[in-house]
């Protein structure tokens, strides 16, 4: 859903009531205004359902383990982290084509 909001003379914007209701917003709730390449984005705080479901499935021991692993991950330099996500880049060269599969014929 995309909503157009108008900024008033004091710099305030009004969020339509249906969005307030749908998102369960209450007076005093914090929203984050982010400047991105695509313009200004408004984010509601909290954790998305998938991430929350994952976290809720972990028991106390697993959460401690996750924290320990997370700390190691966070302690990597940006370069090390980028390198770990850039392994095994796939070649587009003709010589690499031997692993390509024929389409099923049915």
């Amino acid at each position: 859903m995309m909503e157009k909001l108008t900024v008033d003379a004091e710099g305030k914007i009004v969020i339509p009531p249906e969005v307030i209701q749908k998102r369960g917003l209450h007076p005093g709730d914090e929203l984050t205004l982010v400047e991105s390449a695509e313009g200004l984005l408004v984010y509601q705080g909290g954790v998305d359902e998938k991430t929350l479901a994952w976290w809720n499935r972990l028991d106390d021991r697993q959460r401690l383990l996750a924290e320990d692993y997370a700390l190691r991950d966070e302690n990597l330099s940006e370069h090390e982290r980028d390198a770990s996500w850039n392994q095994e880049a796939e070649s587009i060269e003709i010589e690499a084509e031997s692993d390509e599969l024929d389409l099923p014929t049915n």
Partner: protein
Amino acid sequence: MTSSTFQPTSVLLDKGVIRRVYERRVRLALAKPPTVLQVEAANSYAHIATIANRLYITEQTANILKRRTEIFAAPILADTRALKKARYLRRWARRLTDFAFSSEDAIVLAYGSFGLDVESKTVGVDAIITTDFRLAEHYERRHGEIKHRFDDMIVNLPETYAVLRLPQVLTTAAILATV
């Protein structure tokens, strides 16, 4: 595009999206606030999982996840399937580099048309989701020429390839705008 017009059956999540979804979980484990890109990716992932029947990643992304910490990576691997490369995927990727896409971007775009799900025996996806705004914008801008080149290539391939199509390419921010 609105929520009623964006109803993909199959979606390929690029490596940048999966990385941010993973990192969102790392931040939660540390009780640290996530970055904007991580929130965008995680929220898009959660939304896409509710509307698409099949979530895909590339073989490279799957291999990277398999080497990362299981407690964060295993649930993402369980949610997704790795596409295999159908014949001519790289040929199409090389042609995409003629449109000034990097090799890495070209191969992801090529998976969108020539990525093979060996389980369901389907090929290609409805949409590729990326965190890379410039990639999506460039693809959109050159789409007419890309489509022309794609059609020229497909018509010269065996008949089984006639069903192939180009995917949509959308950013995580664009996905959230449809929620």
